[in-house]
């Protein structure tokens, strides 16, 4: 976080005011307390409506996965997720490399978790049931009442996590019936990298065939 530098004694009043305003603006735009509880909840309300629309669209699993990638693009904090699953490798990567990884990785996540989320179902409704907070992280709980392709109904508990430090309301994690996407991916992606001797470009090239 940037803090205003100590003021020189002879600073003219006008410049002082301008500097204070700039300092304040930096503080407001900074990472502290950027997302409120209400914003986190609104985000997941919209997200739940969007997912409900997708699962009832009558499309194939592949179509739903495609729409889910759009959801990740609009509702998830993809650059932060991508950087975080890469770990220390992200710091050595160029911005262009990171961008390419983020896009390829978004498709991989959509295929993987989109299939898990929509694969067995042909209808349903997802609703927000509550919100809790742990440190800087909001956990928004939702319940998905899904109807199975093979008949019968089923309940899934899906939790969405949003950091209050995020510059805008976007989620960084989803937990389906306890299956923690972010925890899994932070183990899996380094393993995928290691299998390619840490070559990020090779991983980016391989990602479209994975997941």
């Amino acid at each position, binding site marked *: 976080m940037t803090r205003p530098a100590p003021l020189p004694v002879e600073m003219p009043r006008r410049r002082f005011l301008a500097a204070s305003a700039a300092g304040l603006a930096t503080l407001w735009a900074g*990472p502290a307390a950027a997302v409120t509880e209400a914003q986190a909840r609104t985000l997941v309300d919209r997200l739940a409506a969007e997912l409900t629309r997708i699962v009832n669209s009558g499309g194939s*699993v592949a179509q739903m996965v495609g729409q889910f990638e759009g959801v990740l693009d609009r509702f998830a*904090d993809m650059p*932060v*997720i991508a*950087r*975080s699953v890469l*770990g*220390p490798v992200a*710091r050595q990567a160029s911005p262009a490399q990171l961008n390419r990884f983020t896009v390829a990785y978004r498709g991989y996540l959509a*295929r*993987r*978790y989109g*299939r*898990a989320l*929509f*694969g*067995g179902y042909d209808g349903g409704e997802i609703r927000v049931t509550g919100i*809790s907070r*742990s*440190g*800087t*992280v909001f*956990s928004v*709980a939702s319940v998905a009442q899904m109807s*199975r*392709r*093979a*008949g*019968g*109904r*089923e309940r899934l*508990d899906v*939790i969405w*996590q949003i*950091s209050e*430090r*995020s510059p805008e309301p976007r989620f*960084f994690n989803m*937990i389906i*019936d*306890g*299956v*923690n996407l*972010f*925890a*899994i991916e*932070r183990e*899996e992606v380094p*393993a*995928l990298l290691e*299998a390619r001797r840490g070559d990020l470009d090779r991983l980016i090239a391989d990602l479209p065939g*994975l*997941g």
Partner: protein
Amino acid sequence: MPRPSALRLLSAVLGLAALAACSPAPPGVDVWDPQEAQNREAHAFNQRLDRVIAGSGTGPSLPAPLTVAAANFANNAGGPSDTLNSVLQGRPGDAIGNALRFMVNTTFGIGGLFDIATPLGVEGRRTDFGETLHVWGVREGAYQELPLLGPSTERDTAGLIVDLLFDPFNALRPVSTRNRLILARATTRGIANLGERATYAEAIDALITASPDSYARTRLLYLQTRRFRLDGEAALADDVFDPFDPYVD
């Protein structure tokens, strides 16, 4: 006939004693798997079996009405056991719900083939003795993968054995009726599991088969879902991680 039940009680108590003596996880360890070599053998066997049963996922599948009716029957036949466990867990709401569901579905649902209770809003909670042990404060113990039965923990395996020995259906007489009912439940459970396998085919393929180490992935998914089932959101508390935290990487 006091003898068999006394024997059952004794063996269950011995089972619990063995459980209490079994390997507690070192503190702070998320996955405790001292029998990994054995478990991996069972996993390889289960994977081969799964490939035989599920094939490539493109073969003919069982008709949905059959798997749904089988699942309804098997779930309903577990009602008395669910009710007993809810009582043992000190959850009267669940116990009443499970008992009501059993009565409604056994009568109006024609022996449990149809689930009438759910649309009527009568909710229960399927449970097992593994959960009862958890409520009583027994620790999870080591992870296990059992041949045929799949992933478990020492606590859940002990629970499974107690559930079999103490099923309220065991008290049914004549014995021939009891045996037929238990056979019917096992058969319908098997058919229902095939239906479940089909429902989760996409999820299993995406999350397990496509993973570089399907054993480790199965273990992680089982422990995560089981702990979430038993503890709800509290199970996730230790895993909360903020990617925006400037001090972690």
